[in-house]
């Protein structure tokens, strides 16, 4: 495992990357990107066995990750590039014409690390399940990870996928829900309440884990490792991970306002002042 202090530093750098990418094109989704930074750093830096080079679509004998809430592409792109999937300077092309870093993740331009397009919500869990079934058929003992938003669970396909995974005992799959309680139009509870989410997942036949502090890096790492130990027992595993949208920038925290909004010059300067430069360096 990488030195934990290095991973903390990476979290800060990823947050700088997210803000710089979104600010540069005045578009993108900083809120949940900032909120999921610890999750991505934990997954790629400490939990998954993965091989950036050469990137292979099939990912045999590697852990695979599928992002269902594709709009948080800035955090994924930053972590992928800083894990060696593609050159860090390419982050400067985010959302620009002729870039491999599309607004929402895509395989179309051949960006290493991406295995399916996402953005239209509710689809990623199904794809992750299919990839997990392939591993089972191939006798491949590695895991498949998937991140989904909480508002995204309002899509009916998610519940179809939940039924399927439990019925077919897809127990090499670890789904994490970014449980920040927010979506574009406001709080989940004001838009369409998700109700008792842990009880619902449990009733659908999943092994449910709750992580109260999804922005605490050590706790995220520990929970992902715990989830791995819970696999192989006939049930798919879900982590309901409480995060704070906009975490790391005080005025972006805990509100849906920064779901899909770029900071202006003054806001950007204020945000960057809260995230000290790191030895990793800006792109």
């Amino acid at each position, binding site marked *: 495992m990488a030195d934990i202090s290095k991973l903390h530093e990476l979290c800060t750098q990823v947050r700088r990357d997210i803000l710089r990418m979104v600010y540069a094109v005045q578009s993108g989704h900083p809120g949940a990107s900032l909120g999921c930074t610890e999750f991505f750093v934990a997954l790629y830096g400490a939990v998954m066995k993965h091989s950036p080079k050469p990137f292979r*679509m*099939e*990912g*045999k004998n590697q852990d695979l990750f*599928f992002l269902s809430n594709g709009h948080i592409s800035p955090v994924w792109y930053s972590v992928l590039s800083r894990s060696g999937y593609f050159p860090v300077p390419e982050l400067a092309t985010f959302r620009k014409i002729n870039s491999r870093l599309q607004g929402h993740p*895509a*395989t*179309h331009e051949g960006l290493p690390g991406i*295995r*399916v*397009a*996402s*953005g*239209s919500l*509710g*689809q*990623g*869990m*199904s*794809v*992750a*399940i*299919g*990839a*997990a*079934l*392939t*591993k089972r*058929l*191939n006798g491949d003992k590695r895991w498949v990870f998937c991140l989904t938003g909480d508002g995204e669970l309002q899509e*009916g*396909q998610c519940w*179809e*996928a939940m*039924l*399927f995974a439990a*019925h*077919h005992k897809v127990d090499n799959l670890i789904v994490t829900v970014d449980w920040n309680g927010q979506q574009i139009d406001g709080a989940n509870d004001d838009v369409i309440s998700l109700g008792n989410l842990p009880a619902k997942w449990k009733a659908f036949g999943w092994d449910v884990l709750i992580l109260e502090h999804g922005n605490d890096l050590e706790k995220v790492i520990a929970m992902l490792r715990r989830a791995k130990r819970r696999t192989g027992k006939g049930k798919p595993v879900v982590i309901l991970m409480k995060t704070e949208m906009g975490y790391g920038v005080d005025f972006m925290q805990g509100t849906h306002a920064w779901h899909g909004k770029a900071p202006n010059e003054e806001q950007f300067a204020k945000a960057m002042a809260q995230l000290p430069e790191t030895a990793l360096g800006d792109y």
Partner: protein
Amino acid sequence: MKLSDIVSTGKKATREGFGAGFLEIGRQNPEVVGLTADLMGSLQMQHFFKEFPERFFQCGISEANMMGVAAGLATGGKIPYTGTFANFSTGRVYDQIRQSIAYSHKNVKICASHAGVTLGEDGATHQILEDIGMMRMLPGMVVINPCDYNQTKAATMAIAEYDGPVYLRFGRPSWPIFTPENQQFKIGKALHLASGKDVSIFATGHLVWTCIEAAQELAAEGISCEIINIHTIKPLDEEAILDSVSKTRAVVVAEEHQRNGGLGDAIANLLVHRLPVPMEYVGVNDSFGESGKPMELLDKYGLGKKDVLWAVKDVLDRKKG
């Protein structure tokens, strides 16, 4: 081949050809896997399931999830065949196909039965007539509509060799068999069924046989029809179409589909740029279907032999005029 040499050797449903081909390709290629959304029997996938239960996934009545799971299986290197009715294979899951399969270029074979009005008594809710249009609009999607049992079986096996998304459309009713057993199926290669000089008839799916019957009747009146089976609507065999049309200078296109967006529009799009000639559509004219027997419905919705006869005569009048 001469028109009079084309004979039916029996009748079977095209979906039975799919079931037979799916079992056969399952035996030949261990990467082939199957999925269904509670329609295993209707799609004739039970033969594969019995022999390869571990390679088959019952999804229940959850088509959206089925398309996503198929995309995931393809990501890992499997060759998934999804099986449900054409309506639920396309319109119901268009966005899943668009994002997780087509845009992501996943090697998923979307196998769709009970297409068109020949589904019969279940009525318009199930009789999709827009699926070819929806699927051929998706960049990179191959669209195939075979004409009989033997061709459907061959197509089902051939698509496993092609790396990319395919929409394979077939039907419910028992239908005349007239193409050879164990034929080679080449994606994108039109089949020249009969030579003629007055008019080119391009047909796909069930209506190929209808056009053969119509052409045999027209031959007795001295009208010479060239019949070409366009089993692959995308990619379209442009060369075969242009070769035929440059000779006949008149076109009839027949399909069990809306006139909007189907094979007719695909051919019109080609000809308007390259070789504009009089052309007629045999297809459903901007209407939903209804309950009834397959042949009654074909007749009522302008997809019968009489409609082909009318279209040929009309287009020949315009060609002279």
